[in-house]
């Protein structure tokens, strides 16, 4: 089991220089500490126009800053949007390879296609084709990294022969991932031999069938890259404190804050219903209406990592048993928690929780 951090860079109003810089600087400070504490990865989303929810329009720049201030932590696109109106696949291949240079081979490349009208409408993107263009991007980007010269004629992207530069440090290339929010996307990842970055605010048990199906599908995959990245990373929240009840309370506040911000976006199904967006994404599940006036508020999901170290060891052990390879944590929401509390939580987690899993890893290695 490996551990990472995940950043949306959510920002409180007013969007002053002070507030915007604070969010970025705090995130960098957290990541630098996480690198020293033994966290293995930092992931950064790409979002546009999502007021408060995410001011992370340039994950490559955030990750470049991280890369130069850290030694070991992997710098991961979580994700780069594969929509022609937003990016050419050439630019993604170039940016990821450049970051691989700057970080000396620490890049992981997550892919996705956006699910909000805010973003797709803002870029005047073709909503009906995002799945198909995403598929094409996933297949060409690894070839841009590995082939000396590359040319292509496709449905959503074409180019004459060129040498796409630089080439990445990692041989053959950075691992490829897919962001998974809607049910079924994990199978899209598996069928292409890509890692599944599953954003889950639910119970561990609900994800067991998804992870099992992923493992089954990837056995017969047609990999888009030069190797199969058979990995499941679960992205959710973490707040670790000696006082378990306080940790849960703060955790609930983080989730509520996240839900409030996510609720401000407009899902594709609300604005531009399309065959390519069939399932409710994360946002839809966050704000479903209760079914009847007497319905009680659902209990907090059991898969969230809020609690004292013992609670977190138990929760993460259940994720591990479910088949997760990595836990990627969001540790902040719109600067709701004071920065020092976030850093304390990371330190406590590294001191009391991580050794339990590292020890198990060592034992497995020793017995191998």
């Amino acid at each position, binding site marked *: 089991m490996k551990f990472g951090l995940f950043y949306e860079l959510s920002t409180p109003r007013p969007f002053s220089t002070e507030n915007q810089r604070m969010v970025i600087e705090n995130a960098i400070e957290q990541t630098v500490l996480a690198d020293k504490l033994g966290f293995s990865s930092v992931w950064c989303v790409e979002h546009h126009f999502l007021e408060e929810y995410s001011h992370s329009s340039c994950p490559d720049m955030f990750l470049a800053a991280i890369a130069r201030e850290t030694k070991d932590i992997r710098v991961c696109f979580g994700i780069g949007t594969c929509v022609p109106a937003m990016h050419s696949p050439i630019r993604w291949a170039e940016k990821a390879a450049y970051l691989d240079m700057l970080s000396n081979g620490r890049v992981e490349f997550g892919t996705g296609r956006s699910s909000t009208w805010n973003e797709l409408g803002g870029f005047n993107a073709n909503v009906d084709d995002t799945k198909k263009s995403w598929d094409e991007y996933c297949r060409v980007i690894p070839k841009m990294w590995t082939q000396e010269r590359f040319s292509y004629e496709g449905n959503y992207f074409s180019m004459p022969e060129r040498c796409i530069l630089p080439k990445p440090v990692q041989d053959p290339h950075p691992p490829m991932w897919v962001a998974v929010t809607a049910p079924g996307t994990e199978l899209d990842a598996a069928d292409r031999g890509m890692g599944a970055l599953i954003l889950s605010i639910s119970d561990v048990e609900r994800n067991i069938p998804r992870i099992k199906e992923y493992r089954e599908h990837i056995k017969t995959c047609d990999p888009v890259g030069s190797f199969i990245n058979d990995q499941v990373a679960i992205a959710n929240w973490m707040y670790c404190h000696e006082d378990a009840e306080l940790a849960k309370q703060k955790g609930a506040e983080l989730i509520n804050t996240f839900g409030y911000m996510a609720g401000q976006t*407009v899902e594709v199904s609300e604005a531009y219903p399309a065959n390519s967006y069939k399932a409710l994404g994360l946002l839809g599940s966050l704000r479903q209406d209760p079914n009847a006036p007497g319905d009680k508020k659902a209990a907090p999901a059991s898969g969230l990592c809020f609690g004292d170290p013992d609670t977190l060891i138990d929760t993460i052990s259940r994720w591990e048993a479910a088949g997760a390879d990595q836990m990627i944590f969001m540790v902040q929401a719109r600067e709701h928690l004071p920065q020092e509390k976030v850093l304390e939580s990371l330190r406590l987690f590294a001191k009391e929780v991580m050794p339990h899993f590292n020890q198990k890893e060592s034992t497995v290695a020793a017995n191998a």
Partner: protein
Amino acid sequence: MSEIELLYGHGDGKDIAVSKIPLNLEDTSEITLKGAHIFYVLYEMKMSAAESILPPSLHPSIPALFSLTFIRGNNSSIGDFTLAYTGIACRTGIKPRHLVMKAFCDNLKASSILEQRYGFSICPAKVTCKESYDQVHGKIETKDAVIVDMSIGNCIPLVGAGGIIKYSPTLNGCLINDEPTLVQFEANYDFKNVIRGEPAEKIFNSKSLGHEAMTTKYPIAGTYAAVDIHLMPPRFQVSLDKPAEEGGAKKITP
């Protein structure tokens, strides 16, 4: 961190149609409109306009949107009718809603039921919604003039509509205990088929539809659905001036 600044409307409520007919909360039976049709068109609008119209209890959606909806209920238990209304997208808490600006209906009996049961403030008008071979047309004609004459074209079918399309419940201005209040109108939908097309307007009188800021400069899409609609009794009421986060949205107790 200092106290978090949140985004709310700052309208004074004067633009919101408020029904003068007292809401009947005693009748909690459901009404089903079998074989109904919904023609729903969505446009973007200026955020500053949405903020100036929405009351302080509601957040504007981001981006700001407004809708024009036609509901045609043939052979329904409340008669043959076509209802049309405009709504500005908003949120109570994190729930997406549309604040109804103006509503029109061509059947007095149905209007009366929709006003008493669900809080619509309805103007009588000739309202039509009909499909042709490759288009869907919507028209609203008041006693003075045609205020809407629009259509969608280049339509494509949507497969598995129940999981693809989502109508936000509306908030209707009405009186509860003589207090102007927003009451939530919601329904369950059993879709038969849905098409989506590109909106085009011959006539679109924004002012007559509720506010001159509701222009058609940025159309998003229009959908036309064959659907059974189950109208549910109102469950929630929303204050005009107190946000949901401060207790402004609460369950209705008949």
